[in-house]
């Protein structure tokens, strides 16, 4: 009979192997599909976003004429601040391109240079008043259309009506190019400037500082509250108590609540009841604290649970009190896990927009926030706002900001992995 059984098994063997192979294949293709999605996303974002790290500058010979500035021989600082710099720039452009006729062309000529040129010139003159009544060769930001053209975003072969730059403008650009007056440089202002409605001046500094301040508030609130809650529930709370069970179930449910709900809660309680001002990192941090708390509590409890009971028993056996046991032995042993959970919770909060929508952080804010009660926005909101802007040049900046945000998230997650690897204890 044994022979027969072996026969049967042998017959089925091929099928069993095939089954295993099939299953492996399913697994591999699932991984391949997800990697393909991830790669296409990353490649798409990088290809669109990389040009944003370069910015076109334009060189202009500026005649800083005191008559055009409407300055007398004696002037106060205030007069210097208010002087008519836009006229100087207009006139300098006219000198460089003589023979520009008509309202439309004159207007187009002004639009070669970014609006920020006026303020750049102002600051330059205020810093060096001696340049008044001299000719200076200065580099200014180029207008977004010129910038898009320099990066190959405008096709010359298209009919004129379909182009953002018309034929006469292309002639100017060609002349500037021939005279080496157009240059692409690393886009420093993307990191040193805040939001602007002119794409060439827009940067992420304000949003980055806003994110940082918001995260600070979130961290300072959610870490102590979350960890204390976890320690109490895990180490001190009475077991098999229906109230404790109820709290546990609710914390687990809260972790799955859509984040916009926390925004609504924040709007009703913090803004409505406590009168916290809208659009500031303080309120953002408070709302994100609500959102991250469940994550931190759950991961911290898991980390505490992973500490073997023998540690507790040994400490108690040697005469330590429960508080001593917990804080001298259990919590330090669980710390790597707690920190990992916190970092992942923070990373989650860093990428959140939905709850901030309700509390007014989706706003145009051009000043860099100085503290947690200054109006500010955060990186993901900045991305959202730029993606909704009509100007073409914002497309690449949107992707570039996504790259920066992804960079932060990767660093944070990497930190979590390192901490786990480094401090993890095997029992």
């Amino acid at each position, binding site marked *: 009979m044994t022979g027969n059984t072996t026969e049967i098994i042998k017959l089925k063997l091929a099928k069993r192997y095939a089954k295993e192979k099939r299953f492996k294949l399913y697994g591999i293709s699932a991984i391949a599909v997800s990697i393909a999605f991830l790669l296409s996303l990353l490649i798409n974002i990088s290809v669109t976003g990389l040009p944003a790290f370069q910015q076109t500058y334009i060189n202009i010979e500026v005649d800083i004429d005191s008559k055009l500035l409407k300055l007398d021989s004696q002037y106060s600082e205030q007069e210097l601040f208010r002087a008519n710099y836009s006229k100087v720039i207009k006139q300098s452009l006219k000198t460089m391109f003589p023979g520009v006729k008509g309202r439309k062309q004159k207007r187009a000529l002004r639009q070669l240079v970014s609006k920020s040129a006026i303020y750049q010139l102002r600051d330059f003159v205020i810093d060096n008043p001696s340049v008044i009544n001299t000719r200076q060769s200065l580099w200014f930001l180029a207008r977004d259309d010129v910038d898009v053209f320099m990066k190959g975003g405008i096709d010359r072969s298209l009919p004129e009506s379909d182009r953002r730059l018309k034929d006469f403008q292309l002639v100017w650009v060609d002349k500037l190019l021939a005279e080496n007056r157009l240059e692409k440089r690393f886009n420093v202002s993307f990191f040193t400037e805040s939001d602007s409605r002119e794409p060439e001046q827009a940067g992420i500094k304000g949003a980055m500082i806003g994110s940082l301040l918001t995260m600070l508030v979130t961290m300072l609130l959610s870490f*102590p509250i979350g960890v204390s809650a976890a320690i109490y529930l895990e180490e001190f709370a009475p077991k098999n108590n229906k109230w404790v069970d109820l709290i546990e179930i609710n914390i687990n449910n809260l972790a799955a609540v859509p984040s916009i709900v926390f925004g609504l809660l924040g709007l009703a309680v913090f803004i409505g009841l*406590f009168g916290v*001002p809208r659009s500031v990192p*303080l309120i953002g941090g408070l709302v994100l604290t609500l959102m991250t708390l469940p994550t931190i509590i759950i991961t911290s409890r898991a980390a505490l649970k992973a500490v073997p009971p023998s540690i507790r028993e040994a400490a108690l056996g040697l005469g330590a009190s429960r508080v001593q046991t917990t804080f001298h032995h259990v919590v330090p042993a669980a710390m790597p896990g707690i920190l990992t959970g916190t970092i992942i919770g923070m990373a989650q909060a860093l990428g959140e927009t939905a709850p901030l929508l309700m509390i007014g952080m989706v706003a*145009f804010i*051009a000043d860099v926030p100085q503290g947690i009660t200054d109006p500010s926005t955060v990186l993901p909101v900045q991305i959202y706002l730029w993606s909704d802007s*009509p100007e073409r040049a914002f497309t690449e900046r949107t992707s570039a900001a996504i790259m920066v945000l992804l960079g932060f998230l990767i660093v944070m997650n990497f930190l979590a992995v390192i901490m786990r690897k480094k401090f993890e204890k095997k029992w």
Partner: protein
Amino acid sequence: MKNIYKSTAVIIASSAIMSISNSVVARDYIDVVGSSTVYPFATVVAETFGKKTGSKTPKIESTGSGGGMKLFCAGNGISTPDITNASRRIKLSEYNKCQKNGVKDIVEVMIGFDGIAIANSKQGPTFDLTRRELFLALAKQVPSNQAGELIDNPYTKWNDINPALPNTKIEVLGPPPTSGTRDAFAELALQGGCFTYDWIKQIKKDSKIAKKSGDKSLASQLKKKYKTICHSIREDGSYVEAGENDNLIVEKLRANPKALGVFGFSFLDQNSDVVKGVVIDGVKIDFEAIADGSYPISRPLYFYVKKSHVGKVPGIKEFIAEFTSEDAWGEDGYLTDKGLIPLSDDARQKMSDSANGLTPLKM
């Protein structure tokens, strides 16, 4: 353990105290809320104002016209916004709510016009539509051959409506009902087409007559009737709600040359290499056509200022002055670069006088 309880309590208490003390402290920046259509214009002005004067740049939230009014009319406290933008005029109900909440003096400023473009991909056929055809293509119910009778919209292809139109499926991407653009589109484009049917227009006339004779309930009943006919957009998939993001609609049109899209003129202006405007009632959408009023689907844009905040929050007067300066809203101003269609010279002068004089609105 006690320590932790203590510190937690201290943190919660201190944050609460901090927040309360904060709301009492005066604000040193202007707080603006309101329409997402006015947002691109208000932000440029805010930025220029900040850079020019060196004072703090106003904070501008895009909450939608209705949401902005709600915040604006909530009260007079410093925690409420100073200015709200709107892509339509303030409603009487909103005005009354403002009055009730103590916001007595509101300064109304009309800043210019915004055209609503109907566009398709450059690769697609050229459309030449009348508003009546648009209405027939998009209304939930359309008039049948018999006057006074409505039938469910039977049209699936453009050439079902007019044989001269392309033989393609009716597919229009547009904003969802929460959007002000959608309201304006329904009001200007669809209602315009709807009123080419005399019997529907008669309902409006009847409503006005009823209002005059004092029969308010009949008037509002009739008004509701013609609004339901004219403003209801079909829900069978021919009109696709494509979200508030106009760039997304442009992207979708690029991918699908057969579809039409509805969005603000500035997006058409910026993407003229990808999409082209549909000719409406024989008028091609462009800057001049919107400015002189020959393009039928355009709407005025406004902002409203809380007079009681002038003087309490620094810079409001200067901000109004910047917004109403020729540099900004004039025919050559920087707002026209962003796609705002300016008011006529006279209207600008008048509006600027009343705005800078802080003349309160009466309704």
